[in-house]
Structures are given as structure tokens and as C-alpha cells.
């Protein structure tokens, strides 16, 4: 009967129900989209790292897991030191730069060396660089920017000729000749990091240990350990940002439900008096208000999940950021919303439960 009372109340004021669901749904969408973006970014970085084909990555001191840009290492260290280490079959230095946004990486690399390490890129059209100002882009970038082979694109304040479109998932969305990138970024002879391929992956731990003895301040990780570092907590400020958005979500859920239920209690004062005259306890009245708030929260969660698909589609179509639908967060977003809704129902519910039945029955 409680369910019926709640359902009929929700049906009786469809616009209030719809608007409440919509506002709650927006905050659910906000949470799910942010989580989808962080997961998409992390999974994308993991795929790219694995696609390099290296066993070890060496980065300069004080480097975050994701987002390295700039070139603080001397390029001579690649052949002068790393290539000569035991078990190292191939050493490749790259320079990373961010273009357009933090999510869009550009890498300068010696393509022939990189092909030896990774097994080569798979070209969907065109092929490798033919000149110093050539660029190859992955299919994701090409789709996002409607780029074709032979077209010129503007990057780092220069024009580049697109010679190939490759299947994404290796290194970066955009790859240019290392020497040209070094020149254009005033980093001649400098690189961002070094990838090492070993004669046998089984030697990885021993080589890492040996390198750490020689270069104690450097970040030297197996690729397995590097990808294990790719999580929300290792991306500067992201975990804090997600916590803030979740906090805002709880507050929005609380305020929307509190306001909505407060208005509902005012509008239904007489009905509360009727229920009390029939012998409804304070607990019964509180339960009706609470269940109605939970129903609004649940409806908002479902609507938010549906809207998150819309947000995913919009981002995928118009913004060069990897985004995912993270279904594991649906129940989490639901619990966050229901917690906010429960808190929001508390004051209106207690107020309704405390109504004097005679005054409530006299309410016009």
C-alpha cells in the first residue's frame, strides 16, 4: 500500500516528478561522464604503452604516471648508455608534447627504430614519413578532425603534411619525426623518455635492478609496472576532482529532493491529516515521504544513466577525448544519489510526521 500511495503521488504531479528526476539525472550524468573520461583516458594510455612493444621505460626524475611533456633527457644517453647495457636489444628515445589539450599527445620518434621495437604500425591509408615536415595520425584523430592523406594540418604553429593514417593504439595519436619535433620545440638533442626492448622479457627485473643502481634518481619501470600505475589515484588532481564532483552530486541530490519533498509535504498537509486520523503513525508518514524520495532518486539515477549515453556520444563525436561507459559505476552513482535523496527527505519527512492531525485536517 505504501508503494501504491507513493506511485499515485508521483503520478499526480508528473511535472514535479519529471523535473526532480531530470535534475537528479544531470548530476548522475555528471558523475558517470567524469568517471567515463578518467577510465577512458587511463585505458587509452595503457593500450598505447602496451602497443609500444618495449619491456622497460626510463623516465627522468620526478615524473608523474601520465602527462609527461617536455624533453629533459640528453639524447646521447640512448646509444651511449642504454643500448650498451646487458640484455638490451634496442633503445628508442622519444619526445612527447601535448597539443590542443592534455588528452591529445604528439610524439616525435625515429620511425624505423620504433617499427623494429613495436613490430611496425598498421597503415589504413598512406605510409611513413617521406620528409622532415611529415606527420602520421591514427584513425581516431583522422576521424575526429576529418583528416585525409596528403592534407596539411596545423600543429605546434607549423604546417605538417599527412602521409599516413595508422591503426590507433600505439604510442600517440600523432607521430612526427623526432629531429623535426626537437627543432620546433627548441629541444635539439633532447628527449622525454627512453623505451628499452630486451633480448628476453624474463630479464626485465634484473635489468631494471641494474639500471636503478646506475641511475638512482630516474623512474625505471617495467611496462607491466608502468601500466599498473595507470589509475585515477596516480593522475594529479583527478581523484580529488572526482571526489569534489561526487560531493556536489550528493549536495544536488539532497537539495533537489529536500525542496521537492518539502513542497510535497506542504501541498499534502491535509492528506497527512487524513492518514493520521486513520491511525497512521509517525513512522508510516515518514516512510511514505522517504520511499517517495528514494523513488525520485532511483528515477533520476536511471534517467542519468540514459543521459550518460548521450554525453558519451557527444564527447565521442565532437571532443578528442577517450571516454567509456563504466557500468560498474552505475550502482555507485545510484547509491550516492539515494544517499543524497534519503538525507533530503529527512527534514520534510520529520515535519510531515510531526503534523498535528487536527491542524492538518483544517488545512486549505
Amino acid at each position, binding site marked *: *500500500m505504501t508503494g*501504491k*500511495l507513493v506511485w*499515485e*503521488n508521483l*503520478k*499526480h504531479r508528473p511535472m514535479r516528478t519529471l523535473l526532480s528526476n531530470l535534475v537528479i539525472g544531470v548530476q548522475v550524468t555528471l558523475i558517470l561522464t567524469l568517471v567515463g573520461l578518467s577510465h577512458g583516458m587511463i585505458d587509452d594510455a595503457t593500450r598505447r604503452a602496451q602497443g609500444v612493444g618495449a619491456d622497460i621505460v626510463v623516465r627522468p626524475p620526478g615524473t608523474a604516471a601520465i602527462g609527461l611533456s617536455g624533453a629533459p633527457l640528453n639524447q646521447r644517453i640512448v646509444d651511449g648508455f642504454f643500448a650498451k647495457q646487458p640484455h638490451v636489444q634496442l633503445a628508442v628515445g622519444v619526445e612527447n608534447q601535448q597539443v590542443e589539450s592534455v588528452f591529445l599527445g604528439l610524439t616525435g620518434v625515429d620511425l624505423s627504430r620504433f617499427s623494429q621495437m613495436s613490430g611496425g604500425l598498421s597503415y589504413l591509408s598512406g605510409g611513413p614519413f617521406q620528409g622532415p615536415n611529415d606527420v602520421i595520425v591514427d584513425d581516431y584523430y583522422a576521424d575526429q578532425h576529418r583528416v585525409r592523406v596528403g592534407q596539411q594540418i596545423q600543429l605546434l604553429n607549423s604546417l605538417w603534411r599527412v602521409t599516413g593514417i595508422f591503426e590507433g593504439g600505439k604510442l600517440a595519436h600523432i607521430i612526427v619525426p623526432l629531429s623535426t619535433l626537437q627543432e620546433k620545440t627548441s629541444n635539439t638533442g633532447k628527449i622525454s623518455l627512453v623505451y628499452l626492448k630486451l633480448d628476453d622479457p624474463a630479464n626485465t627485473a634484473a635489468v631494471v635492478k641494474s639500471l636503478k643502481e646506475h641511475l638512482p634518481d630516474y623512474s625505471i619501470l617495467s611496462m607491466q609496472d608502468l601500466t599498473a600505475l595507470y589509475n585515477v589515484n596516480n593522475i594529479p588532481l583527478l581523484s580529488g576532482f572526482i571526489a569534489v564532483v561526487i560531493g556536489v552530486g550528493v549536495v544536488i541530490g539532497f537539495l533537489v529532493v529536500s525542496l521537492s519533498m518539502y513542497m510535497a509535504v506542504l501541498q499534502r498537509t*491535509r*492528506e497527512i*491529516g*487524513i*492518514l*493520521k*486520523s*486513520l*491511525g*497512521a*503513525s*509517525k513512522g*508510516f508518514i515518514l516512510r511514505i515521504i522517504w520511499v517517495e524520495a528514494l523513488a525520485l532518486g532511483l528515477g533520476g539515477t536511471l534517467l542519468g544513466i540514459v543521459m550518460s549515453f548521450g554525453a558519451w556520444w557527444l564527447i565521442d563525436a565532437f571532443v578528442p577525448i577517450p571516454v567509456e561507459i563504466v557500468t560498474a559505476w552505475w550502482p555507485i552513482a545510484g547509491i550516492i544519489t539515494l544517499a543524497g535523496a534519503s538525507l533530503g527527505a529527512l527534514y520534510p519527512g520529520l515535519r510531515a510526521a510531526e503534523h*498535528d*492531525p*487536527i491542524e492538518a*485536517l483544517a488545512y486549505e
Partner: protein
Amino acid sequence: MSDARDIVEVRQLEKVYHVGKVDVPALRGVDLNVKAGEFLSIIGPSGSGKSTLFHIIGGLTPPTSGGVRVDGSDLAAMSDAERTRMRRRTVGFVFQKFNLLPNLTARDNIAVARHIAGMDRKPDPQFEEILRLLGIASRLDHKPNALSGGEQQRIAIARAIVNHPAILLADEPTGNLDTENSKAVLEILRDLNERLGQTVLMITHNPEAAAYGHHTVHMRDGRITERT
């Protein structure tokens, strides 16, 4: 009926409302006995205290002083929660403004009273007979806004007696009805009293309506002035 037990016993009942810093006495020492199976009309002008008496006997508000026993229970000694429980099965209310829940059908308005009382949703066979007596069996799936005033009041009566209360309290039950529907509702109340032995206390301004009761109590200025 003269041998029947007293189902309502009121002794030296006083009720004072506090309006701001002013004390407003609504009842000033009321004594009243109602026997089981009696149909008692309470008549009096506005402000005479009849609604306050109705609210106290119905357990909606506690008395300031004095004693009230309904079906053996001492209301004056009850807590708010105990009076709430008492309302579920001991009293049934019929109001002037019908007071049906507007979002529910007539059937659900009756069912909610059973639900709150902790009884099965489906009324017992005897109640089906009562629905036929009330002439509303075919109107149960309509919401209040699709029912006439007379039909709404009959639904309210059905809801009030669905849990077989010891007393039925009717506060101006014909106040919002035309003459024809007023007569029908009053006859229903008399039928319930005569056929089922339902104890009825009815507040009214109308002497013709009061005449449907076995006895009439007259009230003025918070006191009972006459019993006929």
C-alpha cells in the same frame, strides 16, 4: 439498549487551547455517557465545543483535564502513539469535507484504512454487504474527483467502518451535501446503527439531521446544556 454498557464515558472534561499568550477554554467540564449501539446527535452553535469533544473522543487531541474512556480505554492517560493506535480500530471518522485521499481510487481509500490498521487489504464478506447497502459497489474504481459529493461521503462512511470500529464519529456529515444526498447519508448512518448496531456520534447544526439519532445532546459555551 438501556441495558447496554457505556462505550463512551466522559467525566468533567476540560480542554483549553493556548492561542499566543491567551488561554481559550473550549470545554468547561463536560459529562457524557454513550451506550454501545446508540445513535447520539450533538447539536450546538459554532464555538460551543462540539468539535473539540469530537476530537478528544476520537483520540485526535488529548484533554487538558478530566476523564475520557472509549471502549474501556482511558484516553486521558494515553500517549500520542497510543492514541494513534487506538484510532486504527476503535474509532472511525466521517468529516464534512469527506477527506478522501484525492490520488487514490475509492477502493484504495478504503484499503488504506485496513492497511494502516494492519488488516488484510481485502475486506471481509460482511463489508461487501455494507458496500451494497451504501450503493457504491459500482463506483469503487473511481477517484474522488469523479464522484459526486454524496458518493464521496458514502465512500468516507465505508472507510470509517471498514475496520468495524467501536464508535463512528461523524462531524457535520451532511454539511457539504444537497438535501437529497443529506437524507441518503443520514439514512445510511441510521441503517448502520439499526442493522449492525454501530454506535454513532454525529455533530450537526441541523435539528432535522439531529432527529435521526436516538438522543440529542445540546452544547453551548463548552458545556452540555440539555440531553433529549
